[in-house]
């Protein structure tokens, strides 16, 4: 059985807007960090939503498997149970549902009752500490009235609590100030040295700021619904200094279609 998060020839559309993904091939392995970079509108977030099972995204063709299990026919909760996690760029607020309740419900859904209430509490408090979050956070309603930084911290907290096999981080670094980025970056570093050491990451980012915390093993560049270039960390550094224009020109010159 093929291990890894495997995407092959994935074509995705949303209703009336035509094909956004035009054949994506990608393989993320456990414990590895892949960065998916590209200009705005290149289809990065669409890939994230399509893999997580958002109902607005229709699969035209292609497939995706998680450690050999077909993903695309499954409802979003079943994908999460297989070990997939999406950190949202714009997480939804769920008024009236406390962070504590949400975390416990999610953990139980994904892992069953593997922890006693006391163990669960210890885990949550450890992670709050890593993320520099006050415990009063637990009594607040999920993302309701949260600042941008608080939302991203809650995504990281969930990532740490669920410790998925594969995590897609959609623009986790966007909209964060330097301090918030630092906290999120350090939490990822901590996660990588602990519960998340076997997690395979697909880190979607427009700017490579977050990559100073997580050195990618592989960097993919996406443009117009396709992955046009794959390289190592050096590619990210190149984008940081040059932007996307040079790569766009190279791709055009090589006649990639």
């Amino acid at each position, binding site marked *: 059985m093929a291990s890894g998060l495997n995407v092959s020839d994935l074509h995705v559309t949303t209703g009336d807007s035509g094909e956004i993904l035009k054949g994506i091939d990608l393989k993320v392995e456990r414990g590895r960090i892949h960065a998916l970079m590209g200009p705005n509108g290149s289809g990065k977030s669409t890939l994230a939503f399509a893999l*997580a*099972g*958002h*109902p*607005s995204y229709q699969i035209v063709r292609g497939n995706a498997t998680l450690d050999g299990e077909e993903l695309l026919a499954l*409802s*979003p*909760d079943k*994908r*999460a*149970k297989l070990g997939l*996690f*999406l950190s*949202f760029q714009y*997480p*939804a*607020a*769920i*008024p*009236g*549902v406390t962070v504590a*309740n*949400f975390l416990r*419900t*999610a953990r139980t*859904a*994904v892992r069953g009752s593997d922890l006693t209430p006391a163990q669960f509490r210890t885990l949550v408090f450890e992670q709050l500490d890593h993320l520099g979050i006050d415990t009063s956070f637990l009594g607040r*309603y999920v993302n309701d009235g949260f600042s941008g930084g608080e939302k991203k911290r809650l995504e990281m907290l*969930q990532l740490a609590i*669920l410790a998925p096999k594969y995590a897609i981080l959609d623009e986790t670094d966007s909209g964060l100030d330097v301090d918030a980025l630092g906290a999120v970056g350090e939490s990822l570093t901590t996660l990588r040295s602990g519960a998340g050491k076997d997690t395979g990451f697909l880190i979607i980012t427009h700017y490579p700021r977050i990559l100073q915390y997580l050195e990618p093993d592989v960097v993919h560049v996406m443009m117009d619904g396709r992955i046009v270039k794959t390289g190592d960390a050096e590619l990210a550094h190149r984008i940081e200094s040059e932007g996307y224009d040079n790569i766009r020109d190279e791709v055009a010159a090589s006649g990639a279609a």
Partner: protein
Amino acid sequence: MAQLSVVPSRAGRDEALALARTLPPPGPVPGRYWKIDLTKLALEEVEPGSVTSRFALSDEAKRKGVIATDLGSASREHEAVITATEGNAVDWRSGRFTALNAARRENGAFIFLPKGVVIEEPIVVTQRLEGPAAFPYVLVAASEGSRATIITRYEAAPDLELVSEIVEIVALEHASITYSAVQDLPANVRVFWSRRGNVGRDAELNWALAELGAGVSIGDVKSTTLEAGARTTIAGLFFPNKGQHVDLQSEADHPAGKTQSETIFKSAAIDGGQARFIGNIRIRPSAHGVDATLRDDALLLSKDSHIDSIPALEIGANDVKAFHGATIGAIDDEELFYAMSRGIDRHEAERMIALGFFEPALVRFPTERLREELRGALAGKIA
């Protein structure tokens, strides 16, 4: 206001019944959604059962002179207070079922808070309702500067079919009353209630009302802020499911300036449940400096369920703050997807989101135990 002895005379009963028969039935006109036709209910054939009230009163409250007893025995000892209070907030002539209550009631519950008495432990009133028809009547007289929380519950005998209730609260200067009522009667019961309170200078009246049971439940709640500094909150929740019809009206009536009200209703309907809610804010001419808000949100959890939500603002003064906001709709797709992406299955996610939706009204209920009970009952409707 029309006065009627709390336990009416024969002649008073006849007059009340005669009036009741001339008044139109409350609730929506029967139609596509509302399947209940009350015109077929012959009032003269409604057979009274009985109401027996039990009171849980802390030693502290007893020591401080709080009276919580049934009206039958109270009417002798506390006649002056009762006479002064009864009919203040509710005019029994105002509707078909208030008049019926006046015609048929035998007893009721009476709570009296002496001047300046503040008690922390809630007073729990359990009304045992014997059928076929029960006519509870609750009278709360809060003297100047008193403060208490009252939790009322029904207990239905198996033969119960109809309930017509009146609740009347008078909060004098600087008094503060929180009154919570949870209606969880069996599905065959029809319940009609009228709950009203008068709020004096710098006094406060907080309603927390839940309609969970009964096949038909029609109620109106009203707070009247009589003098400057009076504040009221009217918080309610209802959740009709299969076979249930709910029709509620709330009114924050501001005859006096510099008074405040906050009305918040959260409702859901599922499995063919039907409801209507009419939320009123009434600011009388010259009631300047009123601050009134009305928030009313409805959640439809199945296509065959229906909620009509009608905010109504009648504003007669210029220098006021009045706000109303209403929403109606299904569970938000993005919220649902977010929860499901965390491994939570659709059904559990919907239940969690719906329960959260009720929370702003739920938190107005006075004890955590009661709130937990309500959460359990609400969750049970999303089977």
